[in-house]
């Protein structure tokens, strides 16, 4: 497809869409790419899009800038980017939008001019599980927090929300806090250290990507009474949860879905924009007023666990519970 056909109507189709992904060593990211490929196939069959041009490698910010430049050079019509930096891509995004390319930032909200964010609300995501934890503990108890990478924007946004929830409940005390870098093995190690030296843990709040390790450590410590654990909506964790439920009726956990499909959701938004649609008033919000918050697809809790589990248990490995907005949902953001 020729570049710069933003204003063109359906006549510009099929569109070429580029993807820039700057981090590969995680299951979440690979699933994001798979979702993108799957959804794009839908559009390809209708003749709306071409094969995706995917740039996916472990790169630093500068490397990602280069990825995006390469996409611009290849004349793509839209770029879906999962950014490695909040502001680092400003310049190249501006270049892209000057060239008439639609830029959609997924997963990470960025203030760049010319980009539309399609993300879930990270603070909201964290708040839900924190509130559940507080409720389970009856507003009182000693809590351990296992965070992701210190200094990472998503980590800070989430933990800020959690701290805010905890501060509204003075009975909650954070007795230990560790950074396990969204790494299951590290999560397991940090948690087992904390378990060995702390007694009387009532609850654990953790982010996704580490929760299985954290729970594994708790299981290995063979506690008399399980703490209330905030987990993750991932198959690996749910398998363990399933086992524990069978052994112990009281075991209680909670996982808020953080959908890798947000990338594919971004793709749907991009396609609508390429078709020349305009966003409705009030759809955009966020700090720079350029964000579409897609709904959090759901929550796995003790009540609906069996239902979810039945649905996903035959998936492979570390499947992340997912959600992609429907085409209708995407269209609903636009003026008809």
């Amino acid at each position, binding site marked *: 497809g020729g570049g710069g056909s933003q204003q063109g109507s359906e006549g510009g189709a099929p569109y070429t869409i580029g993807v820039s992904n700057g981090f590969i060593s995680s*299951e979440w990211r*690979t699933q994001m790419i798979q979702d993108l490929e799957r959804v794009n196939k839908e559009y390809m069959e209708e003749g709306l899009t071409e094969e995706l041009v995917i740039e996916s490698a472990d790169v630093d910010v500068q490397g990602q800038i280069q990825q995006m430049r390469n996409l611009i050079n290849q004349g793509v019509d839209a770029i879906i980017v999962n950014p490695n930096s909040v502001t680092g891509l400003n310049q190249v995004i501006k270049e892209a939008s000057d060239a008439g390319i639609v830029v959609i930032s997924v997963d990470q909200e960025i203030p760049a001019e010319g980009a539309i964010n399609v993300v879930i609300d990270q603070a909201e995501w964290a708040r839900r599980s924190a509130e559940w934890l507080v409720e389970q503990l009856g507003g009182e108890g000693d809590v351990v927090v296992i965070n992701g990478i210190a200094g990472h924007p998503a980590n800070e946004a989430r933990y800020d929300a959690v701290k805010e929830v905890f501060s509204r409940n003075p009975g909650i005390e954070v007795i230990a806090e560790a950074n396990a*870098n969204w790494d299951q*093995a590290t999560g397991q190690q940090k948690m087992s*250290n904390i378990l*060995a030296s702390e007694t009387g843990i009532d609850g654990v709040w953790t982010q996704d990507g580490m929760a299985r390790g954290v729970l594994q450590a708790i299981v*290995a410590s063979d506690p008399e009474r399980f703490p209330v654990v905030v987990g993750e909506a991932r198959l690996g964790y749910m398998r363990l949860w399933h086992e524990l439920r069978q052994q112990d009726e009281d075991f209680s956990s909670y996982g808020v879905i953080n959908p890798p499909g947000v990338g594919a959701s971004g793709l749907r938004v991009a396609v609508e924009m390429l078709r020349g649609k305009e966003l409705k008033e009030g759809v955009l919000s966020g700090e720079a007023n350029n964000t579409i918050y897609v709904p959090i697809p759901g929550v796995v809790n003790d009540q609906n666990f069996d239902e979810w589990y039945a649905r996903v248990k035959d998936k*492979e*490995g570390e499947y992340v519970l997912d959600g992609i907005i429907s085409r209708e949902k995407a269209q609903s953001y636009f003026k008809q």
Partner: protein
Amino acid sequence: MKRPRVDPVLIALLLAAGLFALGSLLQPGFGSYDQAMNILRLAAFLGIVAAGQTLVIISGGEGIDLSVGAVVTLGAILVFRLGTGEAGGALLALAIALGVGLLIGAANGLGITLLKIPPLVMTLGMAGVVQGLILVVTRGELRGETPDLLAGLVSGSLAFGIPGVVLVWAALGLLMWLLLWRTPYGRQLFAVGANRTTARLSGVRVPAVVVATYALSGMLAALGGAILLGYTRQVFLNLGDPYTLPSVAAVVVGGTLLAGGVGSYAGTMAGALVLTLLTSLLTALDLPESARQIVYGLTLLALLSLYGRQRALRE
């Protein structure tokens, strides 16, 4: 030059004891038996992964293996994927994983000896290649299961609550001791690390020893991956990454000279223990992450000051 040599292994063990004591002073639960076993178990992972690193560093020639993290991940993934069914399947999967690790290590060794690529960048490049291979083969879908054998071995305890993996580690320690001190390979390895020209002129096939060493390192990293899998019971794309540089640190803290030719696996075991204790202690203490990193770095520096020092130019 007969210097009263302080035994690095002893120092490292004393340090470990000191850190443990300090931990129990600062944090009441830290001194418990459970915690001691927990730390031993965690140290075992680092220690097993660092076994190959020890051989590589002893082999000298700026030897270092930065591909261990990637190979750990690959080893775990292979066992996870292939090790279905009963014990026999698990052992076969383990054998395949070790074989693949061996091949990757041998490729490192060939690049280093035949093509004269500096070990640091050769193994770094190999880490990229292995990571790429993992992605190509799995496409991010990590299906499989953890063989019960491994899970039982690592998490189960045999006697006195000692985790099985610690016994595996001890057995590996014994094997490494035999390998280094009681086999022609071991003695030739030290010779190659101490002086390659002398070794060659004394009939040692230096390239063969070096290739064998990197191959062993790859194999031991794959073994580390399999054992780590027994702990996490699930593989992840970056499972081994956090072990690469700490494995080097464990070897050095254990008194093995980065210049090659001098060192021991007992030292590495003690070094792994010290580093694990340090991390555990810092996790247990209520500090912000920034302070933890600073303290970790400073402590590591202090450890290096004990015997990680090079000779003075002027004595």
